[in-house]
């Protein structure tokens, strides 16, 4: 297994050149706006309605994105199985990357094609039935497709289980692809499986090939992800950190789903994220091109200043939805009887 030379991959090169990169906005919620039905697999549109995926990417590029994510979040066979498309995993991922590649190559400036890799939706052994080896195989199948279609990097996202991150990272390495990964810190400031933001850097420590960047995406809202960012940066001040937060929180207006974040709020989120030390910044659920344009302008005009406090974040973005992740010391210890396991 040969490690790619990290200094020569397009993502790191562009990052070195520009300092801070704007990723893209939401895939799922923007596809709803184009007519995707709730419950349908967005990945099928790579073959059935590619013009809509082209438009999604093109709009993001026009709004100023430096990185676009392929429409392949649910592209492992475990997720596609639900739509009886498990045997099309390679083809759908390849097509996803080809569509994004074409838009990126026509942009007239460097745009990175990040191959989106989301969770399988399965629990790994011993909690569930999926073995680590099978998880790696499923991710290899997906990432092979993304690579064949021209993706620059495997973009592992919305993860909650450290072992699943490792499986996806190992798959990327097997495919000879550089990778990044981000967790979704949506449960009491940690991931659902209990991964603390400060520990995000160490998930793939044992692996030969290190990630290009790590961070957070999705979660519960812009304030909460900035709180996670403070923890991540403190734990590793030199790390390259991604934040791709939701555009506020979801609400229904009539029959339409909306996110509470406004373009000025997302611009403020970008400035705070820059001050807190993130260098790859984007939006997740609910982030439209209007938001992205405001975020682009914020990156281009903001002079990085000192790191914000939690209070600064609350004041400028709004209250946190969840409590921040504790370090485990403040939790009241339950009085226990004899000890059974260490």
């Amino acid at each position, binding site marked *: 297994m040969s490690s790619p030379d990290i200094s020569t991959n397009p993502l790191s090169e562009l990052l070195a050149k520009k300092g801070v990169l704007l990723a893209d906005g939401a895939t799922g919620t923007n596809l709803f706006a184009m007519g995707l039905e*709730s*419950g349908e697999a967005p990945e099928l549109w790579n073959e059935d309605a590619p013009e809509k995926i082209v438009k999604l990417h093109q709009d993001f590029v026009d709004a100023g994105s430096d990185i676009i994510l392929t429409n392949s979040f649910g592209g492992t066979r475990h997720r596609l199985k639900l739509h009886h498309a498990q045997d099309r995993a390679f083809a759908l991922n390849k097509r996803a990357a080809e569509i994004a590649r074409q838009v990126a190559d026509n942009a007239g400036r460097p745009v990175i094609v990040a191959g989106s890799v989301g969770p399988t*939706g399965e629990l790994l052994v011993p909690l569930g039935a999926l073995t680590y080896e099978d998880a790696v195989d499923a991710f290899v199948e997906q990432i092979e497709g993304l690579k064949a279609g021209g993706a620059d990097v495997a973009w592992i996202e919305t993860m909650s289980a450290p072992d699943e991150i490792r499986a996806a990272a190992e798959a990327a390495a097997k495919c000879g692809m550089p990778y990044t990964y981000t967790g979704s810190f*949506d*449960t009491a400031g*940690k991931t659902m499986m209990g991964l603390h933001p400060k520990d995000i850097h160490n998930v793939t420590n044992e692996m030969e090939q290190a990630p290009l960047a790590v961070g957070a995406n*999705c979660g519960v809202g812009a304030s909460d992800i900035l709180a996670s960012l403070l923890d991540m940066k403190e734990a590793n001040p030199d790390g390259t950190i991604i934040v791709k937060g939701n555009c506020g929180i979801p609400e*229904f207006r009539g029959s339409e789903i909306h996110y509470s974040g406004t373009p000025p709020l997302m611009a403020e989120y970008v400035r705070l994220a820059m001050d807190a030390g993130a260098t790859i910044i984007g939006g997740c*659920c609910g982030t439209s091109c209007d938001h992205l344009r405001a975020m682009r302008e914020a990156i281009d005009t903001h002079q990085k200043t000192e790191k914000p406090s939690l209070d600064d974040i609350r004041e400028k973005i709004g209250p946190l939805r969840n409590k921040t992740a504790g370090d485990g010391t403040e939790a009241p210890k*339950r009085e226990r009887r004899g000890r059974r396991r260490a």
Partner: protein
Amino acid sequence: MSEDEIILSELSDDELVQQMHDDLYDGLKEEIEEGTTILLDRGWAPYDVLTKALVEGMRIVGEDFRDGILFVPEVLLSANAMKAGMAILRPLLAETGAPKLGKMVIGTVKGDIHDIGKNLVGMMMEGAGFDVVDIGINNPVENYLEAIDEHEPDIIGMSALLTTTMPYMKVVIDTMKEKGIRDDYVVLVGGAPLNEEFGMAVGADAYCRDAAVAVETAKEFMKRKHNSMASAG
């Protein structure tokens, strides 16, 4: 094994129940099976074993889950241990006609295969004394309607973990409204991308942040239902 190893059968009833709470917390399946059997052998009513040992133990687990002290891996182990105890008690409970709190049909909505949260809610609800009918993942509205017809539940539970699938909850509830059956059931929704306002907007009775809250909420609604039936009767 060290000399302070605990021999369950040597503990008094009170100590054993306490120990079972700890063992549930630690997800020790075999110890829970052993403790359950010992209490039954000592002449405990199955319903008392359920409520005093298992349900109370899971209540503590649920509280620490709610408070961000325990996370999904630990709670899954606890719930599996509880299920092992339940497997022993279930046939006995059926024989003795132990009281049931109510019946719930639970499933993940169409397009979503995530079942971790749904399974947790199902197990905790069962542990709390509800009958639970789990219709699995990826459920179109028809599946919910069929399950309602077949099982006549008190509560419908819907789960979604993706922003692309959570709006489907509204499809299910709107269909129930069209059929004029919405108000016959308590509808509870949950899942990471949701929130209280969203739950209200789709027309659910309540949004439940986690499995522990789901159990509390379900109990509260069943209590209200019984009260209103009592006053109407």
